[in-house]
């Protein structure tokens, strides 16, 4: 069970366990991380799971994720990610993500 750190909009650090195979958005909503809504349930439609990668390694976003970030998300940055498109694996242990403002 990798532990993922989310930085909430008010700066609070939340360390959240993610179950292997679930998305990081699902892990964050289960733990009630502030600012992660996941309105579309993980279909890359709503960008209400938008975070910035602060530290750790992730595979580059696929085309669907990249285009949804470009056209849907607000306050985008080069390190923008949709957490619903990231599947938890042991390799993600220690990843830090900051919840993007909307």
């Amino acid at each position, binding site marked *: 069970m990798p532990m993922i750190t989310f930085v909430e909009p008010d700066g609070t650090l939340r360390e959240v366990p993610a179950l292997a195979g679930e998305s990081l958005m699902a892990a964050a*909503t289960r733990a*009630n991380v502030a600012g992660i809504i996941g309105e*579309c*349930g*993980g279909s890359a*439609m709503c960008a209400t799971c938008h975070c910035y990668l602060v530290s750790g390694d992730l595979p580059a976003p696929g085309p669907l994720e990249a*285009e*949804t970030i470009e*056209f849907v998300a607000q306050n985008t940055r080069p390190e923008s990610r949709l957490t619903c498109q990231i599947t938890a694996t042991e390799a993600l242990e220690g990843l830090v993500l900051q919840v993007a403002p909307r």
Partner: protein
Amino acid sequence: MNGVVILGAGHAGSQLAVSLRAEGYGGPVTLIDASDALPYHKPPLSKTFLMDPEARPQPLRAAQAYEAAGVMRLTGRVDAIDPAARTVTLAGRLLPYDDLVLATGARNRMLPDLAGAANVHCLRDLADAQRLRDALPGAQRVTVIGGGFIGLETAAALAGTGRSVTVLEAAPRVLARVAAPETSARVEATLAGLGVTLRTGWVGRGWRRESDRVTAIQGDGEEIACDLVLVGIGAEADTALARAAGIACNRGILTDAGLRTGAPHVWAIGDAAETPHWQLDGAAVRIESVQNATDQARHLARQLATGWTEPFRTVPWFWSDIGPLKLQIAGLAARADRRILRDEGARMAVFHLEGDRLVAVETLGSPADHMLARQMLEAGRTPPDGVLLEGPAAIKGWLAAA
């Protein structure tokens, strides 16, 4: 103060409960559902949930989110509502309210002949999805009756698990009532690529039954043998409670543009509600989508919390994941009289126009076009045909040029 009582903790009811507090509502909020599950996302049930025996339901929000908002969650089926006395009956107990919100969703249509057969399924809630998933290990040949969104999504998901899947559709094409012929064609080709057998124009003649199971579906001079049947022929709003209380209903519980039903202090939102629509000159429609449910919930929360009142007006949008294909729809195409197609293979967009006005856009694999469509519809702006045909960059540029 008795506060707001919400019937149904689906996408609409759950959103309303937390939004009421976010809008500053100070009274009690009670959220009642027949199921005791923590309210969950429905869309994955016909997509990822079926493919992975380990997948768990995905909660809409954490249990703490309801606690933090001071929402009281109750489990049980409400049997009656009494708008004159302002009470609901939950398991024989009377519960008083100041305002009552009907967010009871929709229920599946069933083929009466098939109801009750051990290997016949439908898909609406978590219990349905679990029952279906549990039955899959013994089912190699699956027949889906109905080529609508839920049937096609499920067909694609099950084909991906190596089962032999047949879809029977009475209309000449799938998604006939909800999408353009070009969209249907692309969806049909994708399903065929996944190995799904599609039978459009299907004329059903009956069923072969062995004890409590359906073993074959009979058409004109042929039989399709099956281990499992999924009936996906659409849903109907659950209007029984409202009708019994004398509240006007049509295909859904009728509301005005402010989501009020015909009874004072009773409101309806989500799949259950039939509401006047700004894109249809105020004609009432019932819309089954997550966006409609959650946006109506937010709108009503603001009205109940602050006394603010405005007609509900959002651009409707919807998505469906059919195997690898992402279909997105913005707007309502009901009144369109012409359409423009941009087909680039992996990416496709169908623009529906009513005269000179853009009214709806269907996109396949093109989130950029979908988002731009929502912006155009929101602003009531229609670019020249040439700009629509050129692509997202041209549309974006045209919108920015004011």
